[in-house]
């Protein structure tokens, strides 16, 4: 073998080795995009935990977790092929199915809807729904909270003239100024922050949870396209198992330090005591009962959500829930 050939063999072998490494690597980790419902905060701590603690990689997946937001819609992204899995609330899923979107629910993250109303207990007592009469209630017109509130008012027999609905945005000033008596917040994310601010001013806060008055409206779920579930059941199983393991570990009190560190990575400005409080409340909303596996789909809750949406004319037809709810084995106990 002449010198020229020797010089060529070595780079060729290195190149071959690199190609092999890259191709075997690609086979081992399947690329997956997961679109969150909201920004990276405590409401998606399970996904963040699974990402930062390499739980997806251990399941042989290369998952890109993308932040959500008001302008993002995971269901549309699934159909357009921009995402493989996503988070969506039940009302989004039902609206999408009513319009023919091939979306299915593989797990339900929140067992209790975090969307609740904040109020000052010295100002009002809510023993039953009739106590809402005459109150100024904040709602996001067009949002879930409007549908939930209208349902509660309808069930109590209260009409639009019995309460004043106030249009809510991101600015809490009307609540701070006492112009509005009940203000919708995400109990686990915004709740502790606003409560702490009011506490500094010597004001007490309480939360009005519609579920305690029999109104269940299912919140964030894990969704995918029905074709993905049919054609790649193993991928769906592996992804969901890793995601739910992330939730399980993030909410385990023994892992609190790690979960807080994960949250601080994305939310460095929120004080630690608030993060601890947020995590504690999220634990109660995701797994209110330890016998209930994280990710369990609450079929009764879905039935009620569907019924509420039809009554509120958000849906024009009955939706077959069996075609939507496709629990995949992988729930974390």
């Amino acid at each position, binding site marked *: 073998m002449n010198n020229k050939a020797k010089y060529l063999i070595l780079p060729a072998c290195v190149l071959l080795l690199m190609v092999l490494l890259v191709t075997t690597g690609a086979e081992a980790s399947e690329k997956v995009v997961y679109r969150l419902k909201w920004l990276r905060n405590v409401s998606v701590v399970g996904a963040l935990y699974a990402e930062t603690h390499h739980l997806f990689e251990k399941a042989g997946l290369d998952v890109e977790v993308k932040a959500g937001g*008001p*302008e993002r*819609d995971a*269901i*549309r992204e699934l*159909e*357009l092929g921009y995402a493989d899995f996503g988070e969506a609330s039940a009302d*989004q899923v039902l*609206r*999408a199915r009513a*319009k*023919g*979107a*091939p979306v299915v629910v593989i797990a339900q993250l929140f067992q209790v809807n975090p969307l609740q109303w904040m109020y000052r207990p010295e100002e009002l007592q809510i023993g039953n729904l009739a106590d809402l009469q005459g109150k100024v209630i904040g709602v*996001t*017109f*067009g*949002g879930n909270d409007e549908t939930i509130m209208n349902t509660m008012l309808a069930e109590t027999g209260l009409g639009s003239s019995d309460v004043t609905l106030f*249009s809510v*945005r*991101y*600015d809490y*000033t009307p609540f701070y100024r006492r112009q509005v008596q009940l203000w919708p917040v995400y109990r686990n994310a915004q709740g502790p922050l606003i409560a702490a601010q009011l506490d500094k001013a010597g004001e007490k806060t309480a939360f009005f949870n519609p579920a305690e008055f029999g109104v269940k409206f299912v919140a964030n779920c894990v969704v995918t396209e029905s074709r993905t579930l049919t054609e790649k059941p193993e991928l769906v199983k592996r992804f969901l198992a890793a995601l739910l393991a992330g939730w399980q570990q993030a909410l385990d009190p023994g892992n609190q330090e790690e979960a807080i560190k994960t949250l601080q990575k994305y939310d460095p400005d929120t004080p630690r005591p608030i993060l601890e409080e947020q995590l504690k409340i999220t634990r109660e909303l995701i797994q209110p009962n330890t016998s209930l596996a994280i990710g369990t789909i609450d079929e009764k809750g879905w039935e009620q959500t569907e019924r509420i949406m039809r009554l509120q004319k*958000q849906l024009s037809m009955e939706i077959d829930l069996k075609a939507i709810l496709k629990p995949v084995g992988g729930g974390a106990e």
Partner: protein
Amino acid sequence: MLPRRVFQFFIIYFLFLGGLMALKYSLVLSDYVIPGPAGIFRTLIAEYRQYSLATLNTMSVAVIGQILSVVMALVIGITGRQSTWLGSFIKVAAYNFQAYPIVALAPILFILLGDGFLTRLLIAAMICYFPVLLSVLGIMSKPVDDIEHFYRATGRMRWQLEVKIRTFENLAQLTTVIAGSATLAMAGTIVGEFIAANAGIGYNIRIALYQSDLGKILIALFLIGITIAIYQALLESLGAVIKRAWTGR
């Protein structure tokens, strides 16, 4: 002028809609991602009344905002046309004010002034006044030497006369800028409504977005587009009438 504007708008809108339908049917997308023609028509029937009223509400705010901004731009432009210290100060202040994005200022305005008519009006005026101001400054700072020289030489030049001469000589340009700024006034009002108001078509678009209803958004875009097309045509006609009355041609 009016039928041509409306016809041109129809061409643009239906080309856009055609593009969306091509995308929908070529990619086999559901009505949730892009609604079909029947769905859009049903939404039009269901929402026509409410959305038309909301668009008219927005338009009324935009028209008042535009008038305000044109007056503001004329005052600032006429004062700032001179190369004096005050003139240059006004120009710098006007440019700096424009440098702040409205989306950042809007929430502060809504906190201070509430989410009523006044805030929407102010946002509309703020968004549309700058292009008008630039044109007014450009027109008013440029002497029309052929005509002005006579008055200067005879010592009869006053600032009112100077403004009149420069306006008259650039009337076509001013009319085009003012008609064009109508679009900005409408866009400004919609932005304001989208961020925080309780009325108008921007507010309805926000609700439609919450409900992931693209059909409603397409109807809103149609009504916004046709309203602007009509308003712009009316402004252009008004400009032509003023020019005819002034020049006698």
